[in-house]
C-alpha cells in the first residue's frame, strides 16, 4: 500500500517490575510485551489474538499510551506518540479511543448516560451545549438505543446495552482509531452477534480503524482483515485473516486453532495436543518462547530466538521451521 499506515508499531517493549522483599524492592521483571512490530492501515481491522498472559491487552494500552513503554515506538499518522507532551497526547486521544471488556466496570454507576457520553466532548472542548446534546442523541441512535435512554443510569441496562454505550462513548469524539479490548467476551452469544454486527456497521459508516483484541478465534475471523498471534509477549505470526485460518504456519497458531470447539457434533477433528502450562513471563524460556510446549521442537529452538520472517507476501512467522 502506498498510503501511509495509520499506525506503525516498531519493536515495542514493556517490562513490569516485580516488587518484593522487605522494602518492596524490585526483585525482577515481567516481560509483558517483548519487541513486537506491526502496521495498521486506515479502515482495516487488525486483531491481536492470544491466550491470557500473552501481552495482548498490555499492547492495546501501550498503543494509547495508557502505559509508558520500556522501549520502541508507536507512530500514529507518522508521529511517535511517546515523544508527545502531555497536552499534545491529550489532544491526540481524541483520535484514538478505547472500548473495554467489562461493560459493568467501565461506566461510572453514578453518572447518567448523557453525562457519560458528554464528558469526552467537554474534555476535548468540542461543540456548544446544544450541539453536544444533539450529538448524544445522534450517537445513541447510531448504536441502536433510544434517546430517552440518556436520562438513565448504567445499572438500568443489560450487558449488551452497556457495551453499546461503551461504544457510543468511544465514538463521541469522531476518532480515527478504536482499540477494542475483548469487547464481546462478557456477553452471551445472541447479544455478542448484535454487538459485532454493530461494530462492523459503524466501521463502514465512520471509516473507523479497529484494533480488536480477543482470545476467541471464531469472533476474530468474522471481524478481522489481518491478525497477529501473540504468545508470551512475542508476536509469533502475522497474516491476512483468511490466509491465517486457511494455512496457519506457526505450531502455536495451529494448536490454538485446533483447540477451538466447533458447534457441530459431526465434526471429528485431529486435535493438536499442547503440553503443559504457560511458562512464567518473569522467567521466559530460552530461545523460542514456545519451545517448551511445541511438538515440532528442534535443538536450535532451545538456544536461538527465531526472527520474524516474511514467508509469503503479507504472511510473517517467527519459527525456525521456516528458516530456508
Amino acid at each position, binding site marked *: 500500500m502506498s498510503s501511509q499506515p495509520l499506525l506503525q508499531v516498531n519493536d515495542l517493549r514493556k517490562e513490569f517490575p516485580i516488587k518484593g522483599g522487605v522494602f518492596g524492592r524490585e526483585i525482577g521483571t515481567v516481560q509483558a510485551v517483548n519487541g513486537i512490530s506491526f502496521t495498521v492501515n486506515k479502515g482495516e481491522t487488525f486483531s491481536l489474538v492470544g491466550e491470557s498472559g500473552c501481552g495482548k491487552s498490555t499492547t492495546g494500552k501501550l498503543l494509547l499510551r495508557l502505559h509508558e513503554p520500556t522501549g520502541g515506538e508507536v507512530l500514529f499518522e507518522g508521529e511517535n506518540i511517546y515523544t508527545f507532551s502531555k497536552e499534545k497526547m491529550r489532544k491526540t486521544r481524541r483520535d484514538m479511543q478505547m472500548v473495554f471488556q467489562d461493560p459493568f466496570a467501565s461506566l461510572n454507576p453514578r453518572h447518567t448516560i448523557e453525562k457519560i457520553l458528554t464528558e469526552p466532548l467537554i474534555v476535548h472542548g468540542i461543540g456548544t451545549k446544544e450541539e453536544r446534546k444533539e450529538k448524544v442523541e445522534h450517537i445513541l441512535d447510531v448504536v441502536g438505543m433510544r434517546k430517552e435512554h440518556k436520562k438513565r443510569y448504567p445499572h438500568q441496562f443489560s450487558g449488551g446495552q452497556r457495551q453499546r454505550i461503551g461504544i457510543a462513548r468511544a465514538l463521541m469524539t469522531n476518532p480515527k482509531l478504536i482499540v477494542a479490548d475483548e469487547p464481546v467476551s462478557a456477553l*452471551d452469544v445472541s447479544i455478542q452477534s448484535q454487538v459485532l454486527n454493530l461494530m462492523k456497521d459503524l466501521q463502514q459508516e465512520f471509516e473507523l480503524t479497529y484494533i480488536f483484541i480477543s482470545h476467541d478465534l471464531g469472533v476474530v475471523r468474522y471481524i478481522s482483515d489481518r491478525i497477529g498471534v501473540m504468545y508470551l509477549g512475542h508476536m509469533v505470526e502475522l497474516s491476512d485473516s483468511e490466509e491465517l485460518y486457511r494455512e496457519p504456519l506457526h505450531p502455536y497458531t495451529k494448536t490454538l486453532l485446533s483447540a477451538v470447539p466447533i458447534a457441530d457434533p459431526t465434526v471429528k477433528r485431529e486435535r493438536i495436543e499442547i503440553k503443559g502450562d504457560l511458562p512464567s513471563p518473569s522467567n521466559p524460556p530460552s530461545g523460542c518462547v514456545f519451545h517448551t510446549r511445541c511438538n515440532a521442537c528442534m535443538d536450535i529452538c532451545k538456544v536461538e530466538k527465531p526472527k520474524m520472517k516474511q514467508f509469503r507476501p503479507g504472511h510473517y512467522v517467527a519459527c525456525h521451521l521456516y528458516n530456508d
Partner: protein
Amino acid sequence: MTIKPLLQVKNLKTSFFTDDGEVPAVEDISFNVYPGEIVGIVGESGSGKSVTSLSIMGLLPNPPGKVTGGEIYLNGKNILQFNEKQMRRVRGNELAMIFQEPMTSLNPLFTIGNQLMEAVLIHNKWPKKKAYDRAVEMLRLVGLPRHEELMNAYPHELSGGMRQRVMIAMALICNPKVLIADEPTTALDVTIQAQILQLIKEINEKLKTAVLLITHDLGVVAEVCERVIVMYAGKIVEEGDVHTIFQNPQHPYTKGLLQSIPDIRKKEKRLYSIPGTVPKPGSVKKGCRFYSRCNVRMPRCLHDQPPYYTTEENHKVRCWLVEKEGEEREQSTITTSQ
C-alpha cells in the same frame, strides 16, 4: 427404555423470595440422566441453568432461594425430602460438583493433599495412610505430574488448568455416580479447555461416571455431550440427542442460538442475531417466554404457554409450531392411509 435413570428431575420449580415477592427462577424442569452418559444443559445468562444444578445439589442459598415444587430422584430416592444430615452424606459421595472458578473453590490456606484427604475422610472411616494413597491415585488419574510434591502444594502455586484438575480429582475421590460440572472450562484458555474437556470425557469412559455439564458454549456441548437440554428464561425449551439438536433444531431459540455463533471454519458476511434481550425473571406472566424475541411468533404465543411436546423419540420441544406441524403430519398420514 428399560434402563432406570440415575438422576430424575421432575417438574422442579425454584424461586427466590425478594422484597418484591416470589420470583420464580426455574419452572417445569424435568429431565433424566442415565448411567454413564454426558448430558449438557446449555443456556445464556439468566436461563436458570446454574439454579437448576444448585437445586439438585441442595446448595441454593436459602434464604432467598428455595425449591418450591417438584421432585429430584437420585437412584429412586427423592433427595428433596432429605434433611441436611442425609443430604451431606449424598453430596460428594454420590453427587459431586465442580465449579467455574477453580481459583475461588479451593481453600488457599490448606494444602492440596489436605483438601483432597478431607473429602475422603468425611465420607469414609479410613486410616490416614489409605486416604493419602487414594488422593495420590486421584491426582494421577486427572493427569497431574509430581503427585507427592503436589500433595504439599498450596492452591496459589498451581495454574488455572491444574487447579481445575485438582477440583475434578476432589469431586471424583469418593466415586460419585453423577458429576455436575457448572461451566468447568469458562475461566480457562482454549488450549487448556481442550485438555479439561478431554479429561472429562476420559473419566466418563473409564469410571462410567454420569456427567451433567452446564455451559453457555454450544461448541463445548457439541464436543462432549450425548444429549442436550436447552434452557431459556427459566424453562427447558428443547431436549434431544446432540445430533438432533444441532442438525434438526425445532425451537426458534435453539435455531437462533446456533446461527449466532461465528463459525471458525468460514468467514461470515454477517452474523445472525436474535433481537432484544432475555426477559427479567418473573416478568413474563403468560404465554411463551421467547415471544418478544421470536421471529415466527403467532398471536396465540402471547397468551398461551406452549406445552412440552415430544416430536420424535427423545426429542422434546416447547413450541406451538411443533403442534401445528404435528397436526399436519397426522393429517397427512391419515390422507395417505386413505
